[in-house]
């Protein structure tokens, strides 16, 4: 108990200090503790597969060798649960994958070291990612990588339907046209995972948003968002668009890989899935369409390199985070398992290299630069505590759009009401 109190006390002081000093001035005042060599760090990851695990292990070993430390890599299959248990038990890992749904809780409990500017300045990263890991304008942890949504198109289906480059889904009208043309022979034109994490992209394209620019109010029930949801429902009612459960798929990528969908909307994680599970399918990746008002829009997903405020080795952890988020290491991660760098400069370099590799391997596809483009105008996820439950309530009604049992205006007003309740409990 004594130790616990000391730690919470320390964390409380850190929060007070953070509240008093704005912006980068904060960086100097966060006291880092512990030696920078000869320590063993616990590093908790939530790997997407063997490629990511071995890349993390290699990075840990390389940094350890360089600085004379050791890193114990813990791969968790359920990060939220394992990390919560570790914090509750008072012995969190020193450095870990910080997830958006837990971010605000961790900050409010004083468990997350405000390490953002200590590792690298915010200007090095995409602004949307920095925004995702900032609270009260304090930059808490550096974005690990980025993933954005784009449209994947099955090349064989596209050609069979007689579509050409002039038909590429650059606008909502063209996307509707393509979805209709591609719905044939038991294949659905467009299949989406049934979640706000896909439909939200269309909100942005319609000129809508999840929150206002200041991030202080939810704006779900805007006419723009309604227009987007009605556009989706229009396609779903005609059968040109289906949600993944309707075609017995767990997510859009599965429907796409098994040939049930000619197009889907997924993030760059689909590259790895296609390589391992459906290597024979030739597909192209194009940016999300612009909406009726000419707005670009996509969603961005990311983790950060979180450092526990109660770690005894915050100095060593910051040094490790610096290594992990360095341009060279980001490029290594991107090449190892397909995540995009969170630094604009490195992301562009990666896209160019990736295209070269694909061409060298004798393939024409896919061109991943569509994912990189999205980072410029992507909308980040909502990090408000409790939003996960609010979102599931919305997601559960998405299937009903197709047969009309769900009403778009009602869905949005309910989403707005429940989300607002989180801000004013």
């Amino acid at each position, binding site marked *: *108990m004594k130790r*616990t*109190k000391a730690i*919470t006390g320390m964390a*409380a002081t850190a929060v007070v200090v953070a509240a008093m000093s704005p912006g980068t001035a904060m960086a100097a005042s966060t006291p880092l503790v512990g030696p920078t060599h000869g320590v063993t760090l616990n590093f908790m990851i939530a790997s997407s597969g063997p490629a990511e695990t071995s890349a993390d292990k290699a990075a840990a070993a390389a940094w350890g060798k360089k600085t004379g430390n050791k890193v114990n890599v813990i791969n968790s299959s359920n990060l*939220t*649960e394992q990390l*919560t248990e570790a*914090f*509750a*038990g*008072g012995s969190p890992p020193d450095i870990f994958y910080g997830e958006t*749904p*837990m971010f605000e*809780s*961790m900050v*409010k*409990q*004083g*468990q997350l070291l405000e390490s953002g500017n200590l590792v690298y300045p915010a200007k090095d990263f995409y602004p949307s990612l920095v925004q995702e890991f900032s609270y009260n304008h304090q930059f808490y942890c550096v974005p690990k990588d980025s993933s954005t949504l784009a449209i994947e198109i099955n090349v064989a289906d596209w050609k069979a339907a007689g579509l050409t480059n002039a038909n590429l889904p650059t606008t909502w009208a063209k996307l509707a046209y393509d979805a209709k043309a591609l719905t044939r022979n038991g294949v659905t034109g467009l299949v989406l995972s049934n979640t706000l994490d896909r439909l939200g992209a269309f909100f942005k394209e319609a000129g809508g948003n999840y929150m206002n620019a200041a991030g202080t109010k939810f704006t779900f029930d805007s006419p723009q968002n309604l227009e987007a949801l009605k556009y989706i429902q229009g396609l779903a009612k005609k059968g040109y668009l289906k949600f993944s*459960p*309707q*075609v*017995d798929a767990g997510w859009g990528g599965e429907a796409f890989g098994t040939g049930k969908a000619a197009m889907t909307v997924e993030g760059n994680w689909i590259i790895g899935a296609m390589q391992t599970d459906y290597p024979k399918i030739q597909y192209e990746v194009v940016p999300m369409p612009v909406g009726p008002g000419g707005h670009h829009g996509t969603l961005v997903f990311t983790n950060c390199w979180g450092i526990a405020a109660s770690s005894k080795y915050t100095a060593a952890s910051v040094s490790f985070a610096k290594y992990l988020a360095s341009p060279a290491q980001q490029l290594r991660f991107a090449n190892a398992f397909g995540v995009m760098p969170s630094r604009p400069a490195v992301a562009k370099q990666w896209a160019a290299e990736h295209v070269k590799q694909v061409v060298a391997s004798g393939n024409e596809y896919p061109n991943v630069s569509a994912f990189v483009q999205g980072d410029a105008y992507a909308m980040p996820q909502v990090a408000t*505590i*409790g939003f*996960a*439950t*609010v979102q*599931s*309530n919305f997601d*559960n009604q998405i*299937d009903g759009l197709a047969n009309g049992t769900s009403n778009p205006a009602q869905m949005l007003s309910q989403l707005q009401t*429940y989300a607002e*309740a989180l801000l004013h409990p």
Partner: protein
Amino acid sequence: MASVPSDDPGGAPLAAGQYAAVPASLEERAEAVAGRAGTRRLARRSRVRRPRATGTLRKGEGFFGWLFVSPALVILVLFVVLPIFLALYVSFTNWSGLTPPLASSVKLVGLTNYKTLLTEPGLYQANFAESFRNVFYYVIFTVPLQTALALSLAVLVNNKFLKGRGFFRSAYYLPSVTSSIAITVIFIYLFQGAGVVNSIFHFFGWRQTPDWIYDQRGLFTLILSAFGVNSPSWGGHLVMGLSAWQWLAGPSLGMCVMIVMVSWTTAGTFMLFFLAALQQISEDIDEATEIDGATPWQRFRRVTVPLLRPTLVLVITLGFISTWQVFDQSFLLGPSNPTDITPGYLAYQVSFQDSAFGMGAAVAFLLFALIVVLTLLQRKFVKEDLTK
């Protein structure tokens, strides 16, 4: 009873003393000896042992008694009793799960969590009400179904003329010892839109098959709408965030899959209970009723089932308790179909997904209260039956 006195080391001399007042007949005498000795033995026990308990020897024994049970006791207190009290405490706090539960940042919030779940209109209340509606239909369908299935299977495999009884007993028991997660995953594949079950229906000409796993429509709603009843005017009345029509919807088709699955899985375990009880029933009774001209159904209904009553009560009680707190199946099916979310899973989801462990613990304790109340009620009614 006659052998009772000799069981007790001090019994023989006293019993011998009884012969002073010997009754007339030998039988009477034997009865009297047994009966009085029995009473006396009890009386002596209470008389003699009480003073001894304060003796030094007893004290030592008491100490060793506690010493010997202490490992079990320590484990019980440490891993069962304390966590329960800690959880009860947590249900009155705003604990986020990101600090130790007793840290100074954790604030006591009184009944706030319970109020949010029970009285404040909002998402938490609606989700809570929905989870209780779901589990209610799950319980009232699963318990009778699994009990009836278990009893039928037990009677079948108890038949001495059945060839390969051992095989059938193992076969029916197998689902019970298989991982519930594995079985649920298999059922998801069986019941998906283009799965085996729908293929069979298609073969027999039913084309408009539902997407069982994802289907949120209630069974009663579907039956009523077949008769032209669709959401009557009173159906919109909200009770705890759910409309009356939603409350009365019955188990959803997704939930029906879960009910069928669990009934099939647990029937094997309860079959063993019934089988053990059936083997206690003497064959004489069956033969006697057969001679008296009872039909097989009459014998089953009037003789076997009444004799199985204690087992039946046990199976139903265990069935109720385990179904109220169902988790595994809900854990896999709940994320894709909200009508499969039960309070057991909701408590987990609220705790980890929303970092609201206080609320999660409150859900768990409301479920606990419900189980206790319903089990007491059930025991009361079943007991009355037994005394008839």
